[in-house]
């Protein structure tokens, strides 16, 4: 399985070069990448074993392994990712032919494919999470591909924020379960389902995982990013909606169903999915733009899948997943063809194209028939499985399923038929409209045809669906059949077809009234916008408050925060604060200290810069005397030399400067003084706590013992500087050299530079 991933990633890495081959036609050759991977998958799945495990050591210290698992469910998903991927790559090669950004696009698309494939094959949940986030990142790049459009950028960011926020929740949930189970393998979690459910925190962990899944799979109230994501180029939308990305959340729910399906909280997925399905069906009915209608029907399908997984209807879930992937992939590509050829994006803007785009029309009819659940397409099997499952779970589930399936069926027929019937009209002149070539049509025609084939020969679908249902815990999934006789599900199915017909008739008559923007004033997307706006406003406000551009404000804020933090630490840490005991005996250092302090206070009182410079020199000499007294002759010598240089420098430069003036008001000076005294006081207090605490083990002992034998020097301080910590000294020299160069440049540059700039 690693080999498959390696093939696709290698394809992605080499895609930019391959795409440029043969005068930009090389992109067509990239179709070989998913084909090769598909062959590898087929060879692996042909074995007898019900599931294949494959593990490589990756980060053993963290118990993370590159573990993969191929069972019925991941086989179904991987076949969809790669199988639809073949057509998507072919479609994209033609769709963006001649676009200079195509190499980049193909590379990102293949990376996206690799991420999705890794996600469905991963057995290690950390590995799964990494692929999960990779799909978010690559889809961000794909949705925002048209990065000169503000709308595309916004949609990409929205998708990223929503899915990554959910992804973080997912990580929390996965780690919680991982710690409970003592393992990070999905295949081992399955064996410990009951133990995991009985843990007291399992409810929270489940909530976190579900949050990750429903954001990814666009369930209400996180659905809004998906319709916006249609800003992406058509091949991306088709791929994103049919086989990848949004299916990831549903896939993970299905993956976890055998483990956690018995958890009491699992039931909540049923109303969530049902509401999402009905809501999205209604939203689709309100829309005019082709891709938007399709996007909302995807949300409806995801809601239905969540509903089915919530009820634990394994076979219905995988059947619906397969049927949806086929018709949705086809319809999205066909919508792209219509837009590509006629220039129309809105359904109301195009009609009568049946003569101009006959193949497109045929494929669209096939796909819509499957979607609406018309005999004998595979969609009807999926729909009857859905309705049969719903019948076992109460009336309102049936109503939700029938209504949402009916509306969506009607809307998909609207998309598939209205552009082709009636009098010809399109933004582009009819003479200029030609049928798309085989590269664009291969995918939709193949997928739509497959929908009919699987419906006629359900045994073929059983080949993948029965193992998939088994992987979901279905004990003995029945073989699929097209005709079950007249039963409740059949009646319900007829009901949904009636609703579809009603929707078909109603849509053009109510669109103007339903589609008005006033309805969009409420809803979760507004909440998203408002919270992002609030975040921005807070950032601007805080920045305006803190970044005043005045140095003394920064100093004051830093000082105040330091005081508050240190003081609260001192008070909160539990140990009593130690206060110094002042001895009354006067000694030399005490006199020196008092003298230095008096000079320092004098320095801040004076206004003549020269006098202050001289007094500061005296402070420095006082400090060097203290060094000398306390056994630090080297420090004393250095300090004396530096202090002399400093004083000379200050006097040389400052004697040209004007007298300093009192600039601040008296009250300001008083406030500053209080702040400064508090700051100094807290320094003293903390320093005293440090000195009162037992001294930690010091490396000084080591340095003292080795100075002579290894450093060959008797002055230990000097040995440290030039030997043990020679790099520090080198850094010090560099700083001095830089300061000297900077100072020289400033002094030598012409005096009017600044004025010219301003």
């Amino acid at each position, binding site marked *: 399985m690693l080999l498959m991933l390696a093939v696709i990633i290698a394809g992605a890495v080499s895609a930019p070069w391959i795409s440029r081959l043969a005068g930009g036609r090389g992109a067509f050759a990239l179709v070989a990448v998913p084909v090769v991977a598909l062959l590898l998958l087929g060879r692996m799945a042909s074995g007898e074993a019900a599931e294949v495990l494959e593990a490589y050591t990756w980060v053993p210290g963290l118990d993370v392994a590159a573990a993969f698992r191929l069972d019925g469910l991941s086989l179904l998903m991987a076949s969809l990712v790669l199988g639809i991927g073949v057509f998507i790559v072919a479609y994209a090669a033609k769709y963006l032919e001649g676009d200079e950004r195509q190499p980049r696009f193909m590379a990102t698309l293949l990376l996206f494919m690799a991420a999705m494939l890794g996600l469905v094959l991963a057995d290690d949940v950390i590995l799964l999470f990494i692929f999960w986030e990779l799909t978010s990142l690559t889809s961000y790049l794909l949705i925002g591909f048209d990065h000169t459009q503000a709308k595309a950028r916004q949609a990409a960011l929205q998708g990223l924020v929503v899915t990554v926020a959910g992804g973080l929740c997912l990580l929390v949930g996965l780690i919680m379960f991982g710690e409970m189970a003592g393992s990070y393998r999905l295949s081992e979690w399955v064996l410990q389902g009951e133990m995991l459910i009985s843990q007291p925190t399992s409810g929270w962990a489940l909530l976190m995982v579900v949050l990750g899944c429903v954001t990814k799979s666009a369930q209400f109230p996180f659905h809004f990013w998906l319709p916006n994501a249609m800003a992406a180029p058509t091949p991306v939308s088709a791929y994103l909606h049919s086989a990848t990305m949004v299916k990831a959340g549903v896939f993970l729910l299905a993956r976890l169903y055998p483990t956690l399906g018995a958890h009491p909280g699992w039931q909540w997925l049923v109303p969530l999915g049902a509401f999402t399905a009905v809501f999205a069906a209604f939203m689709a009915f309100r829309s005019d733009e082709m891709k938007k209608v399709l996007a909302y029907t995807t949300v409806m399908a995801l809601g239905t899948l969540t509903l089915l997984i919530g009820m634990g209807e394994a076979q219905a879930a995988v059947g619906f997943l397969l049927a949806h992937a086929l018709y949705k992939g086809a319809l999205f590509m066909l919508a792209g063809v219509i837009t590509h050829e006629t220039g129309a994006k809105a359904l109301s803007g195009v009609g009568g194209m049946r003569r101009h785009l006959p193949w497109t029309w045929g494929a669209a009819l096939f796909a819509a028939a499957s979607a609406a659940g018309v005999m004998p397409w595979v969609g009807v099997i999926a729909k009857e499985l859905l309705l049969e499952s719903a019948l076992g779970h109460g009336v309102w589930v049936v109503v939700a399923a029938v209504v949402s399936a009916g509306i969506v069926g009607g809307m998909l027929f609207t998309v598939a038929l209205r552009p082709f019937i009636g009098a010809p009209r399109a933004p582009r002149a009819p003479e200029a409209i030609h049928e798309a070539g085989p590269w664009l049509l291969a995918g939709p025609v193949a997928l739509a045809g497959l929908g009919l084939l699987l419906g006629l020969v359900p045994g073929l679908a059983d080949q993948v669906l029965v193992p998939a249902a088994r992987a979901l815990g279905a004990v003995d999934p029945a073989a699929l059949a097209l005709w079950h006789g007249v039963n409740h599900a059949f009646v319900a199915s007829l009901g949904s077809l009636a609703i579809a017909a009603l929707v078909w008739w109603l849509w053009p008559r109510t669109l103007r009234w339903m589609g008005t923007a006033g309805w969009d004033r409420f809803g979760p997307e507004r909440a998203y916008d408002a919270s992002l706006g609030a975040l921005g406003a807070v950032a601007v406000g805080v920045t305006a408050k803190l970044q005043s551009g005045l140095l003394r404000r920064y100093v004051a804020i830093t000082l105040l925060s330091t005081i508050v933090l240190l003081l609260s630490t001192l008070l909160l840490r539990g140990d009593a604060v130690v206060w110094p005991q002042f001895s009354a005996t006067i000694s030399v250092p005490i006199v020196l200290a008092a003298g230095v302090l008096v000079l320092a206070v004098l320095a801040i009182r004076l206004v003549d810069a020269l006098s202050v410079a001289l007094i500061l020199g005296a*402070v420095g000499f006082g400090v060097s005397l203290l060094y000398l007294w306390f056994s630090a002759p080297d*420090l004393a010598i250095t300090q004396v030399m*530096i202090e002399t240089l400093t004083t000379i420098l200050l006097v040389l430069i400052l004697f040209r400067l004007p007298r300093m003036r009192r600039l601040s008001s008296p009250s300001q000076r008083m406030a500053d003084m209080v*702040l400064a005294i508090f700051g100094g006081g807290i320094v003293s207090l903390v320093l005293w706590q440090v000195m009162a605490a037992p001294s930690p083990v010091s490396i*000084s002992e080591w340095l003292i013992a080795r100075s*002579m034998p290894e450093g060959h020097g008797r002055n230990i*301080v000097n040995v440290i500087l030039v030997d043990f910590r020679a790099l520090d000294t080198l850094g010090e020299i560099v700083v001095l050299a830089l300061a000297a160069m900077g100072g020289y440049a400033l002094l030598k540059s012409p005096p009017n530079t600044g004025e010219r700039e301003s």
Partner: protein
Amino acid sequence: MSADPWLVLLIGGLYSCAFYMMLRRSLTKTLFGLVLLSNAANLLIFVAAGVTIGRPALVPDGLQAPEGLVADPLAQAFILTAIVIGFGVLAFAVVLIRRAHEVLDVDDFDELKDAEQ
């Protein structure tokens, strides 16, 4: 040990003076605050490492290591580096302020900010 509390008091006092000077509007006063601040910080490291009277960190002739307790050489090495770097920073700041006077003729951060705009 008897002088320790007084040294701690001195360090706090020097910090207070430095903070006060750095809160001023005048560029020159802020510079003086920098001088006081580096002295205070050096003394802080020195005193925190523990002070010793009359026992510098030297190895006497004929011995491989000093006998008994000596002053902490590591803290002294750090401070030595800090003194020199402090001087480098100060020298650069002095030139910068002189330049501000020369070009803009200001010694006030508020005016300097206005001049930027």
